[in-house]
């Protein structure tokens, strides 16, 4: 706030001063290897060694040093070292010129990319066109990929996208950490099984899978409110533990209440079907019709949720996330809005559960383990909390990666790469792949300490400064 920290750098001039200064300069000089640049080189070489070891040959029981010997002498090591050296050279020596050229081009507004950007910003029709093109691409996507990737799209990507959209409401917008999201997914899936008459216990009347969706939504809504009402006054870590506990309860019920859920043996569920009299259709083994159905659900939910984000509800969520005390003092009913976010997230998860059960045609308790809650959360954080395109992209990439690696690395190593990607991402780009603007600002303010709240309270300080912001 005030300029009092400058004193150590000034002074020390004069006959004795110069000698002292030379001494100080000698002491202050750092050895070349202590230069951060070379520290980074050393770190990258370490990465190269580990990388070569990890991607190289597997070990054998007979010779414990076999893998290490092979990998440290083979060509793999040199490839890794070369690649890392290249990264280092580019980062340390070519970064500034490239960044300069980029920013000059950007400021001048020249360059084809910049011109495209301005046109893009100015014309909303163009954006609509691009969105339509994207949608058309997504509709024809199943025709362009193999059966294996169709299955991945339907069984994993589309389901997790549905889940991630729901979790984004809770974590990204309302700022509550929910580690038990899959519990509601399970409730949705078991609702589908129950109301289609697939569980050991018969329902009062059987329903079509589509008709189960509103029931599952209401069930999850009630479950979400029942869990949320007493616990939403907790903040951060405590809420995370409560939701984790809730997940464990639901999972253990699914596993151990065999007379109702079928436990680990599971239950087979009817698949989707429509019978309107004049038109009937039965979803079968082909994954593509499910994909289009899921795409429909996703687009519908996105339209609803984007409206919500830019409304009083979305703004109230942001206010609560940023400063709950100020929000309450302004008149925002914080508990009610948090409960709303929780219930919306839960019911989205429930819809995903119905879709999942009706696609697979079979569920058991092991589909609903805690790991999946953590995975969904990591997809949301990886993509960018609070940002719809980020969440979609993040989910798609993080599911695509292990599937892609299936053919290139040993199967049991796949999730190691996923973990490494998450670690690197959180260090270098904590805001996520495609962050929301509000979140980026919050992160900036937290880093620079310029959040309004961090400003001086300045009780009776004489006001002598000009009109500029004290910082």
């Amino acid at each position, binding site marked *: 706030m005030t300029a009092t920290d400058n004193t150590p750098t000034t002074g020390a001039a004069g006959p004795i001063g110069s000698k002292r200064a030379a001494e100080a300069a000698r002491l202050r000089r750092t050895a070349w290897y202590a230069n951060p640049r070379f520290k980074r080189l050393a770190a990258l070489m370490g990465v190269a060694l580990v990388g070569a070891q990890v991607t190289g040959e597997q070990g054998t029981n007979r010779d414990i040093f076999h893998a290490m010997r092979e990998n440290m002498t083979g060509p793999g090591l040199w490839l890794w070292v070369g690649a890392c050296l290249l990264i280092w050279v580019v980062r340390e020596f070519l970064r500034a010129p490239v960044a300069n050229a980029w920013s000059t081009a950007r400021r001048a507004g020249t360059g084809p990319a910049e011109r495209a950007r301005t046109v893009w910003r100015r014309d909303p029709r163009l954006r609509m066109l691009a969105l339509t093109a994207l949608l058309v691409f997504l509709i024809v996507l199943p025709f362009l990929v193999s059966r294996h990737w169709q299955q991945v799209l339907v069984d994993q990507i589309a389901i997790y996208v549905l889940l991630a959209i729901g979790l984004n409401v809770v974590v990204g917008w309302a700022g509550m950490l929910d580690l038990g999201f899959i519990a509601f997914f399970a409730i949705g899936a078991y609702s589908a099984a129950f109301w289609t008459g697939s569980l050991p216990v018969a329902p009062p009347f059987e329903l079509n899978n589509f008709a189960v969706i509103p029931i599952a939504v209401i069930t999850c809504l009630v479950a979400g409110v029942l869990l949320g009402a007493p616990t939403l006054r907790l903040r951060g870590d405590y809420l995370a533990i409560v939701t984790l506990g809730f997940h464990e309860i639901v999972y253990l019920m699914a596993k151990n209440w065999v007379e109702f859920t079928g436990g680990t043996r599971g239950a087979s569920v009817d698949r989707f079907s429509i019978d309107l009299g004049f038109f009937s259709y039965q979803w079968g083994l082909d994954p593509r019709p499910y994909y289009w159905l899921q795409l429909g659900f996703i687009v519908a939910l996105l339209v609803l949720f984007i409206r*919500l984000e830019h409304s009083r*509800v979305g703004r109230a969520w942001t206010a609560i996330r940023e400063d709950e005390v100020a929000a309450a003092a302004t008149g925002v009913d914080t508990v009610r809005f948090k409960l709303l976010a929780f219930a919306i997230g839960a019911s989205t998860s429930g819809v995903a559960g119905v879709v999942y059960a009706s696609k697979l045609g079979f569920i058991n308790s092991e589909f609903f383990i805690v790991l999946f809650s953590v995975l969904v959360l990591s997809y949301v954080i990886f993509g960018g909390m609070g940002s719809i395109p980020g969440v979609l992209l993040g989910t798609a990439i993080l599911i695509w990666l292990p599937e892609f690696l299936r053919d290139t690395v040993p199967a049991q190593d796949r999730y190691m790469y996923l973990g490494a990607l998450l670690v690197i991402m959180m260090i270098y780009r904590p805001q996520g792949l495609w962050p929301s603007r509000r979140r980026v600002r919050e992160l900036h303010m937290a880093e620079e300490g310029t959040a309004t709240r961090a400003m001086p309270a300045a009780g009776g300080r004489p006001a002598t400064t000009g009109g500029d912001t004290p910082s």
Partner: protein
Amino acid sequence: MTTETKRAADRPAEGGAEPHPTILETSGVTLRFGGLTSLDHVDLAMRRGEILAIIGPNGAGKTSLFNSLTGAYLPQEGAITYRPRAGGEEELRGRKPFRVSRLGLARTFQNIRLFGALTALENVKIAVETRQRTDAVSIMLGLPHARRAERDSDRRAHEVMRFVGLEHRINELAASLSYGEQRRLEIARALATEPELLLLDEPAAGTNPTEKHDLEELIRRINTELGVSVLLIEHDMRLVMSVADRVAVLNFGRKIAEGTPGQVQRDPAVIEAYLGASDEEEAEAVADLVADLDAEHADDPEWRGGDRAAEGRSNDGEERP
């Protein structure tokens, strides 16, 4: 709905039953934190439509009183009675903060608490929208009344921003505004809830003389044009003396004086609280001195005698248990 309340706030109550002349009354409010008594049987009556300033050395319990009034703290004893213009009586002690806000009490914070990552306009819109009742489902479906509510809140937020003179900064991020503008934005956010009683916690802290002057004018306009009663905590004595109708003085959680600015300035108990005079003679001497200085510097806007005195005393005040 929002516009109706505004119009109601614009005109002084007319027709029907005359509203009770006392808008807020605290009796025996006592707040303790463990062994520390922050507020000690505070009795305070605030008249409708007045500007009441609360002064006192640091740690005297001024902000604790605000927090007790707005539901952030729960005082152990006492009653806080609020009488809305519409009639009736509301007990504020133990109410949730958002309920207090809905009854018509709005506040600002000593250390500014804006939603920094939102734009200035959005900050105000949040406050406007706490008075709306549009449900999430109609918003998601984009029903006409939800769209209308959104337009209303936009219009109303623009109005409030114009009132406080920030209409040129509406699309700036709240965190990027200057300190004085942030103070003004906080007042705008409070006003957007259409309060009958506005609680300002040191609105002039950290602002420069020009901003102080603007602020003084703004507080007067809020009081006269909008008909809002203002409860003001402030250390800047010049501002307090010029803007307040009455002044109440707190010291160690107790109300030691109340009256017009002139009365309070001459009160020996007040002078003792601020200057720590040990015996009455000295207090009298100091009072004379203060009066003389005040007369001497009456035309000088830079002279802030009381404020300087407050700073001299402040350290002792904080260290006392």
